[in-house]
């Protein structure tokens, strides 16, 4: 895909001249004076842009660990109050029902992944990558881990056209489990709770598989890939995939599983405010321009449309690693119900409703945690839910840093040269009016020129990253292009955060090297760069 962008030898020479002029690398100060030549070096127009989130951008915390946790700076006073209310809700830790002192906080599902939003989105960023110490071969996921597994049954045929009959190509739930594996539980979640206290649907173990990548200059990078093992499911305690007679629904061979990390939650309202037509304009499903980049839209079930009685409750997918949710509202309230187990106005039923585990739990504990409050309403009120959603919609994008640095500028040029921008689309302009998540959007999000560096579309990223698990129209190799804004602050916010959908990449360089499929040419070109150039490209990413 990069043939047209590869530069001839003379271009490299000009780059050298430019670097000299900038006082950057390439000039040892001993060369003979040369006649002044106007260097013609093209820098992309985003090279010096600082305010990636337009008027929402924060400058007060854009260099430190608070960089993802600041309200958009252009909120009204009332909006700021709602945002701060949502902030408190985002950190609220839910408890086992009943909680007589704080009934507003009870309802933590019998099984869950975490008890609060913040644990999977630490400081509004990514969660920590689990550590497997040198003296261990694997670890069991527990309360410190933000990563979890999505699960589903394999379908006989790929689902390519969503209809009401095929549930709009939604993942097929694993019988008696669902589409997400909850590895934690309240004390008595399981019938065997006295032997498996605080254990969820099954134990999940994580280990790492490692291999090296070697550049032509001899530099080596060690890459790791997380491997999962699922054991001790509640429907067959003690069972593993290696058991002589596997009976658990979860451990059948046709059950697909894939890791999911928490994502940063800033700038989401702006992404939702990108006009649908602007995103679809970059769709190239059949690669009609022959650049080896397709770009496909995911069309997904929209719970808001369904609740409003829309006969075709389908919208463009924008959020989630496979763009499997259409809005911040669906994403946030889906996670509130799914990851934590708190029912809410958009998702009023427990995610494990009707499973053997839930039925057994209710019987064992006296039907006090049915997913309904005492008044029959969902566990989280509309006010609580709206504030959480608004919070996620209006966290500010941090301003860039070091934009005048010579390496950063060269990195921007290389970013363009390697066609990283073929998928990481630098800029959009948000819409001037309308709704997001079914509600009138905040003025703060309107008409903003933003630089998220994503096309919001699905791309085949190759076998190395594939989880083999379709999600609506996304196939097992496809992932939505990750926004790059703020990515340079990732480990400032959380020093143990990793990159990519499962946190496998400890550095941005590792993340680049995992790019395959439609991005393989860019990765090959990256590997062909000199070490200094590779450093420059990473320096540009770190400035975002």
């Amino acid at each position, binding site marked *: 895909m990069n043939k047209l962008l590869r530069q001839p030898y003379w271009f490299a020479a000009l780059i050298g001249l430019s670097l000299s002029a900038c006082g950057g690398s390439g000039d040892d100060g001993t060369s003979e004076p040369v006649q002044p030549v106007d260097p013609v070096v093209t*820098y992309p127009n985003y090279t010096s842009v600082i305010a990636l989130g337009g008027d929402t951008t924060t400058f007060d915390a854009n260099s430190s660990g608070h960089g993802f946790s600041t309200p958009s700076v252009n909120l009204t006073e009332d909006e700021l109050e709602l945002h701060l209310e949502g902030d408190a809700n985002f950190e609220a830790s839910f408890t086992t029902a009943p909680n007589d*002192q704080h009934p507003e906080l009870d309802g933590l599902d019998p099984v869950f992944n975490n008890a609060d939003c913040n644990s999977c989105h630490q400081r509004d960023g990514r969660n920590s990558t689990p550590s497997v110490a040198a003296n261990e071969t694997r670890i069991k996921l527990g309360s*410190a881990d933000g990563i979890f597994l999505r699960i589903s049954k394999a379908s006989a045929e790929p689902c390519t056209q969503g209809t009401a009959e095929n549930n709009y190509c939604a993942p097929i739930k694993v019988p008696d489990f669902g589409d997400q594996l909850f590895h934690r539980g309240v004390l008595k979640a399981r019938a065997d709770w006295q032997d498996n206290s605080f254990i969820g649907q099954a134990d999940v173990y994580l280990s790492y598989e490692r291999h090296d990548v070697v550049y032509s200059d001899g530099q080596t990078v060690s890459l790791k890939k997380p491997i999962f093992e699922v054991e001790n499911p509640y429907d067959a305690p003690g069972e593993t995939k290696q058991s002589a007679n596997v009976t658990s629904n979860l451990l059948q061979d046709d059950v697909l599983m894939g890791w999911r990390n928490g994502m940063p939650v800033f700038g989401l309202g702006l992404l939702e405010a990108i006009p649908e037509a602007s995103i679809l304009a970059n769709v190239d499903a059949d690669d009609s321009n022959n650049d080896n980049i397709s770009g496909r839209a995911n069309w997904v079930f929209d719970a808001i449309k369904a609740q409003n009685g829309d006969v075709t409750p389908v919208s463009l997918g924008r959020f989630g690693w496979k763009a499997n949710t259409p809005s911040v509202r669906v994403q946030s309230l889906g996670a509130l119900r799914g990851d934590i187990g708190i029912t809410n106005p958009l998702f009023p039923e427990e995610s494990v409703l009707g499973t053997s585990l839930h039925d057994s739990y209710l019987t064992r504990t006296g039907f006090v945690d049915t997913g309904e409050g005492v008044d029959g309403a969902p566990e989280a009120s509309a006010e609580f839910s709206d504030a959480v959603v608004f919070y996620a919609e209006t966290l500010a994008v941090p301003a860039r*840093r070091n934009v005048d640095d010579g390496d950063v500028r060269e990195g921007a040029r290389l970013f363009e040269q390697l066609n990283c921008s073929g998928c990481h689309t630098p800029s959009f302009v948000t819409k001037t009016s309308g709704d997001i998540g079914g509600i009138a959007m905040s003025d703060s999000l309107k008409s903003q020129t933003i630089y998220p560096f994503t096309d919001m579309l699905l791309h085949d990223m190759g076998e190395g990253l594939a989880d083999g698990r379709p999600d609506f129209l996304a196939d097992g190799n496809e992932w939505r292009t990750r926004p790059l804004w703020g990515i340079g602050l990732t480990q400032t916010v959380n*020093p*143990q955060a990793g990159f990519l959908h499962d946190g496998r990449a400890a550095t941005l360089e590792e993340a680049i090297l995992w790019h395959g499929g439609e991005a393989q040419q860019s990765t090959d070109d990256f590997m062909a760069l000199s070490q200094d150039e590779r450093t420059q490209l990473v320096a540009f990413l770190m400035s975002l």
Partner: protein
Amino acid sequence: MRFKHTAITLALITTLSACGGSGSDDSSTETPVEPTTGFSFAATEMITNLTDDVIVAGYANLAAEGDALLLLATQALLSASATQADLVAAQNAWKSAREPWEQGESHIFGSVDSLSIDPHLDSWPLNTTDLQTQLDNNSGFDAETIKAWNDDVQGFHTMEYLLFGNGVDSNTKLIADLTTSEREYLIALAEVFRDYATLLDDAWQVNYNAENETAIPYADLLKSPGDATNTIYSSQLAVIEELINGMIGIVDEVGNGKIADPFGDSISTADTSKVESQYSWNSLTDFANNIIGVRNVYQGEFTGASDNTGLVDFVAAADATLAARITSEIDDSILKIQAISGSTDMPFRQAILDEDGRVLVQSAIDALTTLQTSLESDVLPLLSDWNS
């Protein structure tokens, strides 16, 4: 600060426009801009001192308190012949351990967050129902098992609940009321605390990421901003921004969360169940220690230690009057928190239910609001005036 950055942005946009935006060689048109305003301050010594002599020293103290608490709990409580004095000694050890922990909340960033040590050690309210169930149904507790349980049945406040009782009418507990199961659980919890405190100390002094054997101490990352291999802090400005925002964060949490949440709008909406350290009646000491932690970072040394370089010197380089005012506002906040107990040594959970006590609580909230406003409006903006 916001205005200045906006101005910078506009200036850059203008530069790009002058160059024709995309496709132009804008690199050749830029000339370095010499700062004509602002202030100068050499920050290396301050960053080194705050890292080593405040943050790392504080975590080292916490680890030492973890060792002491475990030793004391094991020796004092394991024996069936343990006395009331043994229980009081364990209670005091718990209070001693709270001091470095609460002071350290003035710099909640880095490993304390990434290792999830904060929720493991300091979650409340507790789930006393589940706790009692586990106490009734198990014996011979071990630390590794408890670590896998939910955070609301472990950590500081579970130890507190077992050591001091429910705190409603008193914060004393008789050794006779401490069951065998509770003793075993306490000792296991003390071991859990010791392990996490050691882990945190090691992360700052040995290796911040157990997954990577070559990872350096987190303290070194803080002390080497801008180094080519430092992916955490890109500049000294980033470190100072981290420290100032850390101070703002805890002042906000104490004023608007720890105190204001249980305080409510009136006596009728006051909620003692939201009070931190409600069982031991250590709440006011906790809150004061939070702001003493702010003072540690601001002054550059622990209370009573010899003078060293702190953020006060950074602020003074820009505005000596402001630096002195912040010192005064920090001290005032600490005094107002401590004054809540009044002449009757009233604990916080009682003060929020007492008319006179509530006046004192409001006074402390006001002092903290003043301090927070100054830090946000006057100190943080100095970063944009600093010629770093």
